[in-house]
């Protein structure tokens, strides 16, 4: 093959990383007589002098194509694109040959490594000759952020973005924001009241002009990409007009239907028209259509009849909101492990076995017992067992540590002791009190006389109205049977139920434990592999309130700095269609994941919208007519590369 282009081949030593295995001198010498190929080597082409050398040679020898044989293109492709551009060569006329990660580091024998490197380099020389100049397009970023989930993380992220003067949509599936934190009584280890610190933030969300709050709403579809996502949000019919309702509560008093309250974990009743909890935002009721007489039997209608503001609207329909967003923050929180799965702990079989969240509701002054810790028969317990790691750190259920149970179990011990003077036994595997003030709090709880038994209970059974916790005390080396009135289980923190669905519509990966996968565990804990989508709070993994707030702040900062760029570069690697070859068979149309291809029945051709194309090339490889091609990965480029490498 005769080469018309003048190709500069820059082979990097990478110190000894490449030069230690690949005989670069020999390789260059062997090929030095090839026409129109110019070989150079240097210890580090990524360094400033290395880059300067490339630029110098481009100008000196009028090079028209560049091959850089160095580390993986994932590391320095952008660097060398920039170098070429600065020297006046289109960046897409550069090809990066990976002779470190995929050659010198994975090959034992020097001769083999040199031979492989030569093949790889020539495959890129072959390819670069066919490459075409491409131009990066810029599109404007929609200056609006979508926050999914209205718990403490979502609230914090939304407020931070709103404070920066940006528009933000906060979408919450429940009728009120607040999430799990709203259910808590006090927070560890400082024992400040959860609602006292959360409620002002919730009110601020309601008042802030930059926040559009969509409660009782769910995100159904997301399309687009960084800078311009498009989300379809279903605003479920609340049956109450928020603009007219004042939250007076007359409708709730008149409603004859009582069902278990979700907010109180089924420990109290609510009406079919209800406000989830007193501090709810928005503070307006919602009709639960599954239980409402009007919707199930078409009678009653009392709430509508008595509402002084005509705010009740039985004909309200679900509303679909479609909006564009520059960035998305996912803060969907967690769900609790279902302790019923561990049969031997007797949850739901024995009346006085509770979960920690149920106890939080009992402790709350606005909860079902107005803050009294009582058994199901109304008596005050004298002996209470708290079982740690229910489902967590357990090969049979969840292998990971749920991070917050140790400290909240201590907190519950302290609060119950304070209220009931009961004897409290903590059954634990290890106490992991790594949070600030954790160890000090443990000492305080010890001083109060709370007992700690190291061991995972094997069984809980009923004996004469009492619960007996059977456990091997691994410090004493003895089996213990502790008689108690009440057992509290501290269940594992699990991914929220909607996590797999959201991962699918947003294209996010999940980690092994089912939580959202962060981009980097240390350096990008709030970013995801999808540019423009960030994660905060327990949807990324179990964490306490301060950590959730910190991560929410980071996610907000990431989103703000993204949309503040105003413009974003779009990769020019997209499909192209040659209409002359298109037979209108439409095989490609159904394969495109982004609806970038449409059938034009008038012309009997397929029409391509390049703005919608992401450059996967699935259509290209399905086109039998060869009408479609993918820029930078055209058939001739790949075939030339194959020829060079074999």
């Amino acid at each position, binding site marked *: 093959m005769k080469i018309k282009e003048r190709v500069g081949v820059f082979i990097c030593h990478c110190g000894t990383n490449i030069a230690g295995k690949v005989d670069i001198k020999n390789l260059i010498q062997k090929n030095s007589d090839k026409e129109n190929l110019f070989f150079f080597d240097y210890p580090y082409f990524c360094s400033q002098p290395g880059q300067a050398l490339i630029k110098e040679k481009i100008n000196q020898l009028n090079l028209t194509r560049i091959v850089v044989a160095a580390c993986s293109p994932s590391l320095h492709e952008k660097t060398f694109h920039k170098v070429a551009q600065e020297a006046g060569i289109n960046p897409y006329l550069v090809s990066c040959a990976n002779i470190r*990660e995929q050659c010198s580091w*994975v090959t034992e024998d020097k001769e083999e490594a040199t031979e492989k490197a030569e093949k790889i380099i020539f495959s890129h020389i072959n390819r670069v000759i066919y490459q075409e100049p491409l131009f990066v397009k810029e599109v404007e970023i929609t200056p609006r952020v979508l926050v999914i989930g209205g718990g403490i993380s979502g609230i914090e992220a939304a407020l931070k973005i709103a404070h920066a003067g940006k528009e933000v949509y906060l979408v919450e599936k429940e009728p009120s924001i607040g999430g799990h934190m709203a259910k808590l009584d006090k927070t560890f280890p400082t024992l400040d009241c959860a609602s006292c610190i959360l409620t002002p933030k919730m009110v601020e969300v309601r008042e802030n002009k930059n926040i559009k709050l969509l409660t009782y709403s769910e995100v159904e579809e997301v399309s687009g990409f960084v800078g311009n996502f498009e989300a379809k949000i279903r605003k479920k019919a609340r049956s109450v007009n928020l603009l007219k309702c004042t939250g007076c509560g007359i409708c709730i008093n008149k409603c004859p239907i009582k069902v278990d309250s979700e907010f109180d974990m089924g420990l109290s009743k609510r009406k079919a028209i209800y406000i989830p909890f007193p501090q709810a935002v928005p503070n307006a009721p919602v009709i639960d259509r599954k239980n409402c007489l009007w919707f199930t039997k078409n009678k009653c209608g009392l709430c509508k009849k008595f509402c002084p503001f005509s705010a009740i609207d039985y004909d309200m329909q679900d509303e679909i909101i479609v909006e564009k967003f520059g960035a998305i923050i996912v803060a969907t929180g967690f769900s609790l492990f279902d302790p019923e799965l561990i049969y031997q702990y007797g949850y739901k079989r024995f009346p006085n076995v509770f979960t920690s969240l149920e106890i939080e509701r009992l402790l709350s002054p606005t909860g079902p017992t107005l803050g009294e810790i009582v058994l199901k028969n109304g008596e005050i317990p004298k002996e209470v067992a708290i079982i740690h790691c229910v489902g967590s750190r357990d090969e049979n259920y969840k292998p990971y540590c749920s991070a917050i149970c140790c400290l909240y179990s201590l907190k519950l011990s302290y609060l119950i002791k304070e209220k009931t003077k009961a004897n409290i036994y903590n059954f634990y595997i290890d106490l992991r009190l790594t949070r600030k003030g954790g160890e000090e709090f443990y000492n305080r709880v010890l001083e109060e006389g709370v007992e700690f038994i190291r061991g995972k209970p094997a069984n809980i059974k009923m004996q004469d109205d009492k619960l007996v916790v059977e456990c091997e005390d691994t410090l004493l080396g003895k089996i213990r049977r502790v008689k108690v009135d009440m057992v509290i289980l501290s269940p594992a923190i699990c991914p929220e139920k909607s996590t797999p669905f959201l991962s699918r519509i947003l294209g996010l990966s999940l980690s092994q434990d089912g939580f959202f996968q962060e981009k980097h565990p240390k350096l990008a804990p709030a970013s995801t592999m999808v540019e423009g989508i960030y994660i905060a709070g327990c949807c990324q993994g179990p964490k306490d309130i301060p950590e959730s707030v910190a991560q929410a702040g980071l996610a907000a900062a990431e989103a703000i700095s993204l949309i503040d760029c105003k413009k974003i570069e779009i990769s020019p690697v997209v499909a192209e269609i040659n209409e002359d070859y298109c037979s209108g068979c439409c095989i490609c149309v159904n*394969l495109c994941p982004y609806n970038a291809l449409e059938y034009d029945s008038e012309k009997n051709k397929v029409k391509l919208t390049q703005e919608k194309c992401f450059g*996967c*090339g699935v259509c290209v*490889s399905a086109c039998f007519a060869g009408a479609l091609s993918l820029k930078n990965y055209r058939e001739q480029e790949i075939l030339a590369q194959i020829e060079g490498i074999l």
Partner: protein
Amino acid sequence: MKENIKILGFLCQWCAYQGADLAGTSRLIYPAEVKLIKVPCSGRVSAHIIFKAFQKGADGVFVAGCHIGDCHFKCGNIIAEKRIKVIKAILDSLGIEPIRLDFFFISASEGLKFKKVAEEFYAQIKKMGSLNLNHGR
């Protein structure tokens, strides 16, 4: 005579290519006969490309993409896997052993899996020997 086996792998740039890079970063050694080409998505690899690879002298070809559900382009890997099954059947009808072609799911964190795939696929092709097609035109 020493037989020179040539293996060509097409790796999606988001997962499998990163997995191969990780194998490198972790200094996991695999046969130098395994050579790799980066593609934007495993779904970009057409039947034409695979036939050409065999025609140009590859003794074994594999395509590797993201795990199901991880595809950067939603479903390119699923389409690619299906396509490979069809191409295997065509190879069979042409008298080329279908196991000379395969599809693997390799994530960016599976450097070790990449090494294993490269080693095992190489061993399998080596056992079968060179394809010995008439090279070129």
